[in-house]
């Protein structure tokens, strides 16, 4: 959460206040694992809000069959398949790191946090591989020709 400016007013000197404002907007910290996880959570979170806006806006096409068919056909183009995979990576990371935050905040799992971090990291990787296989499969079939990819569980 943000630091409330009203509770921490700027310093008396106007020159000092200006530089303090400049420096504090993007505070520099030592980037350790937890900090990196927090930065990625924030980055994927903002990305997902942008996606949510586009997604809800795009689905207004559902009112017209022709527009909807054209939209879904476009979702099958190579660039959207890559995007689909990137979306899954962002969702899987944000969901599992969010779950880690919930388990620590609400269930007090902080003593077990190292093992929790490793376990959820492995789960995230599994979600990305299993969930992302349809996109990888589709791109592989397109790049290397039909039948070149093992369909596995699809």
């Amino acid at each position, binding site marked *: *959460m943000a630091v409330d400016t009203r509770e921490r007013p700027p310093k008396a000197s106007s020159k000092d206040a200006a530089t303090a404002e400049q420096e504090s907007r993007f505070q520099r910290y030592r980037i350790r694992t937890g900090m990196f996880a927090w930065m990625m959570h924030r980055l994927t979170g903002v990305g997902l809000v942008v996606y949510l806006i586009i997604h809800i806006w795009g689905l207004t096409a559902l009112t017209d069959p022709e527009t909807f068919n054209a939209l879904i056909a476009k979702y099958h183009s190579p660039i959207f398949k890559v995007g689909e995979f990137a979306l899954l990576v962002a969702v899987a990371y944000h969901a599992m790191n969010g779950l880690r935050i919930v388990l620590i905040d609400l269930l007090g799992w902080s003593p077990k946090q190292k093992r929790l971090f490793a376990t959820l990291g492995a789960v995230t990787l599994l979600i990305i591989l299993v969930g992302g296989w349809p996109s990888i499969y589709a791109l592989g079939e397109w790049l290397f020709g039909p039948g070149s990819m093992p369909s596995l569980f699809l």
Partner: protein
Amino acid sequence: MASSQSNALNWFLHRITGTFLVFMLITHFWVQHYDHQVASVTHEVVTEKNEMPEYPEEAKEGVKARFGPDAEATPYQVVMQRLADPVYAFLWKGFNVLFLIVALHHGFYGLNNVMTDYIRNPMGRLIASVLSWTVALGLFIIGTYSVITAGW
């Protein structure tokens, strides 16, 4: 201060909506990408203009069973077969409206947290907050409209 109390509630709600979203997203992904009969996105790349994705046999049969032997498995028809059963359509629409509310609250509350971290001016914060929640309300209205009118 009243606002600090409501922020504590929102902080708690953010964790609750986040947990709900994990389960709702699993359902959403399963229906949209993995269920052979109703998934609207298939495992193939389409590059030609006006070319439609090829749906699995289960989807083709499902569409024919609902809309007659001549019905084609287009993306729109594949979605419509989900809504053909009134009970399922009601549940599906209910789920999606709930999903929409939870996702918008979670996303825009999170976005407001990020914005308050970088915007220090109280007036700037207020403007950013009002603007973002207006966008959220707009998305809620058009999203609900899409869900309710789908298949009419």
